[in-house]
């Protein structure tokens, strides 16, 4: 059913007329052109489609768009502010914490959500919260280092 939905997307309110059952992932990618959010598995098992919903990392491939009505959604495109990279983005670049880069947006947003609740995470905390984000190229060691280094910078 076509419904009018308002929600905050990357810090600005937007209004859409969409079929409310459609998934957030495809609305973001095909209707709104925000292609940084990726399809990887379609069942919430890989984390490539991760976005922030009210600051919490969620799997956009399993969320009907109606569920974000009135809420605050941030995608990887909304992370840099006023032309400045977020410390996590900077750290991922500096640590070469990516290869093909397909899982990277989801990795960064999941880490963002972790640092909101745990500004000084231990390695075990990072592993636990990143566990369901899959990377086939094997950048895991560098991703952990990048998150640790970003956390340190953000605490300053």
């Amino acid at each position, binding site marked *: 059913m076509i419904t009018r939905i308002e929600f905050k997307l990357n810090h600005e309110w937007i209004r859409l007329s969409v*079929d409310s059952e*459609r*998934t957030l992932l*495809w609305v973001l*990618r*095909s*209707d709104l*052109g*925000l*292609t*940084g*959010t*990726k*399809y*990887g*598995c*379609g*069942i919430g*098992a*890989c984390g*490539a489609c991760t976005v922030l919903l009210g600051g919490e990392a969620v799997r956009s491939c399993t969320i009907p768009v109606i569920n974000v009505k009135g809420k605050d959604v941030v*995608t*990887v*495109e909304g*992370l*840099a502010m006023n032309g400045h*990279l977020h410390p996590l*983005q900077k750290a*991922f*670049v*500096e640590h*070469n914490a*990516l*290869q*093909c*880069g*397909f*899982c*990277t*947006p989801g990795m*960064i947003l999941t880490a963002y959500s972790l640092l909101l609740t745990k500004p000084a995470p231990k390695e075990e905390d*990072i*592993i*636990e919260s*990143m*566990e*369901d*984000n*899959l*990377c*086939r*190229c*094997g*950048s*895991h*060691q*560098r*991703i*952990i280092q990048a998150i640790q280094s970003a956390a340190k910078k953000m605490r300053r």
Partner: protein
Amino acid sequence: METRKTIEADSAVPGAFGMDRRQFLKIMGGGILVFFIPAFPGQVQEALTAETGRLPKDFNAFLRIAEDGRVTCFTGKIEMGQGIITSLAQMLAEELDVPLSSVDMVMGDTELCPWDAGTFGSMSTKYFGPPLREAAAEAKAVLTELASERLQLPLERLGTKSGVVFDKQAPHQKVSYGDLTKGKRIERYLDKKPALKPKEDFTVSGKAVVRTDALEKVTGKTKFSGDVSLPGMLYARIVRPPAHGAELREADTSRAERVSGARIVRDGDLIAVVHSSPDEAEKAFALIKAKFSRPRTNLNDSNIFEHLLAVAPSGNVVAETGDLAQGRGLSSQLIEAAYRQGYVAHAPIETHTAVASVAKGKVTVWASTQRPFGAQEEVAAALGQPLQSVRIITPQVGGGFGGKTHNKQVVEAARLAKLTGRPVQLAWTRAEEFFYDNFLPAAVVKVASGLNQSKRMVFWDYHVYFAGGARAPSFYDVPHQRTTAYGSWRGAPGFHPFGVGPWRAPDSNTNTFARESHIDTLAAAVGIDPLSFRMAHLQDKRMIRVLEAAAKGFGWSSTTTPSGKGLGLACGIFKGTYVAVMGEVEVDIASGHCQMKRVVCAQDMGQIVNPEGARMQIEGCVMMGLGYALAERVRFRDGEILDLNFDTYQIPRFSWLPKIETILIENPEMPPQEGGEPAVTCMGALVANAIFDATGVRFYELPISPERIHEELKVHARV
């Protein structure tokens, strides 16, 4: 406009370009163009020609210095995470004396880039790098000549730095590359070998740099194929059989047709639904009722090994030294074993994706592929169009590992675009990705071996079924040895129940698992520490050096296995690169859970262009290798693939991560060898050997899953 040529080239090279060369060069505009050919050694060239039937003797890559001073390298290679977008640019920047930031890489576009066989087999840096450097040296020589005329100075007084030619005696006297190329049109066809910069003068190459594509990747700006959106584009879903070998009986699409905006496309066996929105296409797709005949092959992931042994073709002896009968006679202890490896998926996070558009007879496809020129041929053949009318553009590829050498989705998208008259995006679902993957082949290796009274290997009779023979021969010093290969890793009708193909280090994972496991077994049988046992059977200095480096880095202490400590090692040679890994595993006896705690990898890969890139590749190999060693195995039954997503098919996760330490051995005298694959080959044996050291139980089949460990240890405990 000035034109100088050192070789007269044909005006049109059918097959080498997507269009007439004259037309092509015209659109290139002014500047300096240097054309070159990758330096394949004879046998590689032959193999490539045999495989592709299309290796042109003509130049097949080039670089351009434009009038604005920007340098562009046009290559048919593609970037899929392995990092050549950075390392090739580094080599070019180094030799040409320009900042890395002024280099642009145009990759995998069949219209702009000269023909290339594909990005696989880790050949990019090894065979493409040296002529790229030579081309850059040639360009630099042209620029210096031009500067000599412009500045009225002899060549020997001129130096180059940061895109500028300057007077060595008065450095303020200078002219930029951009200024020198203005209004010029100079073409060079590289046939001689210009002098290259000595490695002592390197400032860019060999230095750790940040990936040049990292910024776009962390901001979500990078375009992968599925991120391409064209006006009027439709998203497609294709009806798939439930099992390999299944045939379509009937399909009822009437309910799907009633979904608003959905359109059904039928062309022979191809039944698809297209819609302007991907999830509406999905919704309509779910309403299609298709019936298939189901084959009964009675093959599954448990009995596949018996099947493979039963259908194997006769063997080819690929290497032989001494006399096997004599070796057997000299043996005081004979040890035989069979090793097995199940099917493993590539599972890149980006599924096979393509966006195709057909307009005025011209087909353009943006595709996630490791073989854009192969895709071009396949699309042209499928659509019955001339090759020149098909253009494949390869954006960044979200992981390949060999799996994207197969271009099925590219052809499907092109067919649908032609049938609908609209641009079509086809992004395979994860289930399609698993179903149509060309897996690492299941394989069996049988080894019979013998030791003499002085604890030396004297006999090695090695039989490999479907894992490839080229790299199967052992490099250990055994006087009487023979290697026989049955079938190849490529598969052929009647052997495997579905597609198999190149999987990162295609012929080496199963062979290294078998060889290095068996060497450990022999070492344990004579009570010698596995490192000393290997060293005692090695002559090759490079191999001895990587083992010594790994042992030093790891802190390997001589001990016989099983020591209970969970230590293991493995080593191998892959395409000119030597690698040794050592590691420590912790096995939870109760659950069977295995955790690699630490992995040290020493590698000698010749000259190292991008040390950071090399380390990243090794780390990636370690993680990916843990997957096939500990968990990954595609389950199937009667052609049906039972693992179709990441809920049941487990790939390595953060919690699996060992502390990975990489040791790059300086070997500047040797040109760059290969870095993307060697370490992955050792991971199966490393894990098996470490588990043996921890538990005393030898595992002969990969993956060594927790269930298997649990079962085996239970049996062992009863004994």
